[in-house]
C-alpha cells in the first residue's frame, strides 16, 4: 500500500514537473501581453537568485546574508569586460561565472577554514558584500564608480545573437529572447538542486547541514563539502547576474552589491521553502503576485509610493518563520499528504 502511494506520488511528481516545464516553455506562445511576460520573467529571475541561495542555505544550512556578492561580481565582470575590452558576451559569461566562483571559493575558504557557523557566517558574508560594495563605488578607474557601467545598445538585428541582446532581434526573439535566457538559466538551477536531492554529494551536504560533527564522524569532510556547495551556489547565482546585465545593459554598485539582491534571494527561498527544488520558484511567484496585488490595491488607494510591497514581504517572511518554517512547499506537501491519506484510507 505504502509502496503504491509513494510510487504514485513519484509519478505524479514527474508528471507535475513535465507540465510545469512544458507550460514555462510554451508561455511566450500563449501569452501575448508584454506586461505579463515581463512579470513572469522577473519572477523567474528572483527564483534563480533564490535557487542559488538555496543550494548553500537550504541544502547546506549555511545562511548567507550577502549573496549579492556572487550576483554582483558576475554582473560587473559581464559588463566591464564588454565595456572596457569589447569582448564578446559569450566569452565574458564564462569569466563572469568563473570570477563569481573564485570569490565564493575565497570567502568560503576563509569562513569555513576558521569554523564560522550560523549567524557568524551570515554576518561575514554580509561584510564581504559590503566591502565589495564600497570597492565598486570607490575604484572609479576600474568600475566607473557610482555612475555605473552602461553597455551600448545594439540596434542591428544581424548582430543580435553575437551581442547577446534581443531588443532588436527580429519578431520572435525580441519578444521571447530574454525570457528563454532566464528560463534556461533557471532550469540549470533546477537541475543542480534536483541533482542534490538524489546524488551522493547532495546527501553529504544535507548530512553536514543536519549535524556537522556527526557527518564528519561518518567520514565526510565538512570543509570540502561546504566549499563545493558555496562554489556551486555562486555559479548558479552568477547566471542571474549575467542575465541582468544582458537584459538591462546596466549595473552600478547599489544594484550589484547592495542588500537588495541578497534579500530578494532570501525571500524567494525562505518563503517558498528551503532545501527544496521547487521552493524558490514557488516563493518568487508568491511574492511577485502579492507585490502586484499590493500595487493594484494599496498603491491605487494611497498613491503609487515605494515600499508597500517590501513591507508586505517582510511581514510574510516573519509570519513564515514563525508559523511555517518549511515554507509554501511544506504547506503544499501537508495538504497533499492529507489528500493522499484520505484517498488511501478510503481504498484500504
Amino acid at each position: 500500500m505504502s509502496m503504491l502511494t509513494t510510487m504514485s506520488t513519484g509519478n505524479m511528481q514527474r508528471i507535475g514537473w513535465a507540465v510545469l516545464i512544458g507550460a514555462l516553455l510554451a508561455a511566450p506562445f500563449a501569452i501575448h501581453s508584454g506586461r505579463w511576460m515581463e512579470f513572469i520573467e522577473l519572477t523567474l529571475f528572483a527564483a534563480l537568485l533564490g535557487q542559488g541561495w538555496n543550494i548553500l542555505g537550504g541544502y547546506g544550512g549555511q545562511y548567507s546574508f550577502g549573496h549579492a556578492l556572487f550576483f554582483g561580481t558576475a554582473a560587473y565582470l559581464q559588463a566591464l569586460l564588454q565595456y572596457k575590452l569589447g569582448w564578446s558576451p559569450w566569452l565574458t559569461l564564462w569569466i563572469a561565472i568563473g570570477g563569481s566562483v573564485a570569490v565564493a571559493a575565497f570567502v568560503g575558504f576563509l569562513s569555513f577554514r576558521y569554523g564560522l557557523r550560523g549567524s557568524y557566517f551570515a554576518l561575514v558574508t554580509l561584510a564581504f558584500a559590503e566591502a565589495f560594495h564600497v570597492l565598486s563605488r570607490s575604484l572609479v578607474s576600474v568600475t566607473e564608480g557610482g555612475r555605473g557601467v552602461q553597455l551600448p545598445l545594439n540596434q542591428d538585428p544581424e548582430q543580435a545573437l553575437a551581442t547577446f541582446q534581443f531588443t532588436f532581434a527580429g519578431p520572435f526573439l525580441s519578444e521571447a529572447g530574454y525570457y528563454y535566457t532566464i528560463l534556461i538559466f533557471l532550469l540549470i538551477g533546477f537541475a543542480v538542486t534536483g541533482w542534490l536531492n538524489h546524488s551522493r554529494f547532495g546527501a553529504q551536504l544535507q548530512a553536514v547541514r543536519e549535524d556537522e560533527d556527526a557527518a564528519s564522524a561518518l567520514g565526510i569532510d565538512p570543509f570540502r563539502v561546504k566549499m563545493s556547495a558555496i562554489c556551486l551556489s555562486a555559479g548558479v547565482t552568477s547566471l542571474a547576474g549575467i542575465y541582468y546585465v544582458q537584459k538591462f545593459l546596466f549595473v552600478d554598485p547599489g544594484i550589484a552589491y547592495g542588500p537588495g539582491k541578497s534579500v530578494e534571494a532570501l525571500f524567494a527561498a525562505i518563503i517558498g521553502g528551503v532545501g527544496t527544488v521547487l521552493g524558490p520558484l514557488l516563493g518568487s511567484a508568491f511574492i511577485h503576485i502579492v507585490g502586484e496585488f499590493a500595487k493594484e490595491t494599496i498603491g491605487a488607494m494611497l498613491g503609487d509610493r515605494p515600499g508597500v510591497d517590501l513591507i508586505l514581504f517582510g511581514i510574510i517572511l516573519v509570519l513564515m518563520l514563525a508559523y511555517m518554517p518549511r515554507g509554501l512547499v511544506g504547506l503544499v506537501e501537508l495538504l497533499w499528504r492529507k489528500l493522499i491519506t484520505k484517498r488511501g484510507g478510503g481504498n484500504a
Partner: protein
Amino acid sequence: MDFLGISLPSYSLETVFGSAISGVFLGAIYALVALGLTLIYGVLHIINFAHGTLLMLAMYAVFFLWSVFGVDPYLAMLIVVPGGYLFGYALQRSVIGRTSHGRDEIILLTTLGVSIVLENFALFAFSANERNVQVPYDFDGIDLGVVYIVWPQIAALVGSLLITAALWCFMRFTDTGKAIRAVAKERQGARLMGINVEHIFAVSFGIGTACVAAAASLLAPTYAVFPQVGYLFVLIAFTVVVLGGMGSFVGALVGGLVIGVTEQIGRLYLGESLGLITISAIFILILLFRPTGLFGQRL
C-alpha cells in the same frame, strides 16, 4: 608614503591627530548604538538586525518633534528614550519573542524581516528624502588647535559616556539590573529563582532600543536621517560589538572608539568613499580570527 603599491597622501602628524580626535567623538556615538546591541545579545543571545532600523525610526521621531513641535533634539530625549523602551519591549514581546525558537540564523532572519518592514514603512511614510535637524548652535564649538570641534560633537561624547555609566550603574545596583545579569548568565537558574525570564528579555530589548533612541537624539544635529540610514549604522554596530566582544559593555565602549578613530583616519587617507572599507575589513578580520572579540568570553 606607499602602501601595497598605492601611493597614499602624506599628512602632518597634526592632521592625523585631528582626525583621530574627531574619530573619538564619532566613536562615542557608535559605542552608544553598539551598547544596546551588545546588551540584547548578552541577554537574549540574538543578533538584532533591526537595531539600525530602530535607530532610524528614533531619528525620525527626533526630527518630527523638532520640525512639528519645535522640540530641541536634546530635549527630545525625554520623549524618545521612554518611547524607544516601550517600542522595544512591545516588539520583543509581540514579534521577536514569539518567533525566536530554533536556530540562531532563523532569529537573525526574523529581525531582518522586522527591519525590512520598518525601513520600508519609513520609505513609504516619509519618502527617501534626507532630512536635517537644524539647531542654532550647529557650527559653534571650540578650536582644539589640530581640529575644530562643534558643540553637538561634544554633547555626543559626554552624553554617550554618561549614558554608558548610568546603564552600568543600573545593571550593577538595581534589582532589575541584577535580574538581567542573572538571566544573561543562567537562564534556567534565573527562572527557578522566580525571575520572569520573558519579562526580562523584553526589558533588555527595551533598554537596548532606549539606547539607540538616546543615540538618535545625540546624532540628530549632525546627521541627516533617511530610511536607509539604519543599514549604515547596523554594520558599524555589528563591527563594534564583534570587535569589543559580544555582550561586553566595556568592549562596546572601546570598540566604538576604535572604530570611530579608524574610520576617520581611513577616510583621511583613502578618501570619503573608500575609507569605509576599513570598517568592513575590521569586521571580517575579527570574525575570522577572533570571533570572541577583545573582551568577550563566550560565543
